[in-house]
């Protein structure tokens, strides 16, 4: 009975602490932070990058093993926040793994760029609420 209670508490502790995806970043050229008013274009795999862009860095979203908040829209919202924090106004998905037998999460590789033009004119992914 005591062992059973311990198992229940361990499962609960894991459930409470590890529900986010694992994010790793490599920011080679961070720029000035952007305000919330400034738009960030989210480009999916099939969207093309414009010319005259400066690479800011890379992001990688993986399944931590206990991730539950890892839908595509949820991850892209985090990508946008990370992009703004590092001064990037374009986030381009370069690799996308959809949920499968091994993981219930989207797994993404993202490249962040700074673009001097108007990003709202670019063909881009439109976020929705899950």
């Amino acid at each position, binding site marked *: 009975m005591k062992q*059973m*209670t311990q*198992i*229940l*508490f361990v*499962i*609960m502790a894991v*459930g*409470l602490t590890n*529900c986010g995806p694992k994010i790793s970043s490599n920011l080679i050229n961070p720029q000035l932070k952007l305000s*919330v008013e400034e738009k960030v274009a989210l480009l999916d795999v099939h969207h093309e990058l414009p010319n005259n862009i400066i690479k800011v860095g890379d992001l990688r979203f993986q399944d931590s093993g*206990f991730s*539950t*908040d890892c839908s595509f829209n*949820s991850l892209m*919202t985090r990508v*946008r926040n990370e992009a703004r924090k590092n001064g990037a106004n374009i986030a381009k998905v370069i690799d996308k793994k959809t949920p499968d037998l091994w993981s*219930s999460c989207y797994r993404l590789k993202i490249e962040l760029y700074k673009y001097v033009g108007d990003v709202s004119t670019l063909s881009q992914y439109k*976020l*929705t*609420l*899950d």
Partner: protein
Amino acid sequence: MKQMKNIFKVLITFPMLLFMGCATIISGSRQTIKVASIPSSATVYINEVEVGKTPVERSLKRNQEYQVLIKLDGYQPYETLISKEFNAWYLGNILIGGIIGLIIDPITGAMYKLTPEELTANLTHGGTAFRTEKKDVYLMVNMDIDPGWEKVGQLIKMK
């Protein structure tokens, strides 16, 4: 015959309880957020996605956090964060010893409840209020006039 009925009920209910979490059964995986403002017709954005004009309501997944922005011309924008907090119904799994519930509730998001937080403290003077009605969150915002706008006149209702 009555005994057969009872057995049938148990056979239906038991697997349901076994394979669902306590919080999932009680709270569900989504929560309704209702937003109203004075004056009304302010545009509401959740995670920068336009969801409509006040009064508006939206059913949101419990396992995410949301940035809410309310904008109306001539008024200061109001911003708040709806964060996820621990839903006490999750503890019901321990009381009834449901290991499956401990796993199911985090997956469905039912182990959380959505709660708004004040981001911009000075806007509270404008009379912002939110309260939780049973499962729903009701956010009422009294919009502050933008000091950058100059009053040039006032419409008066005709008798």
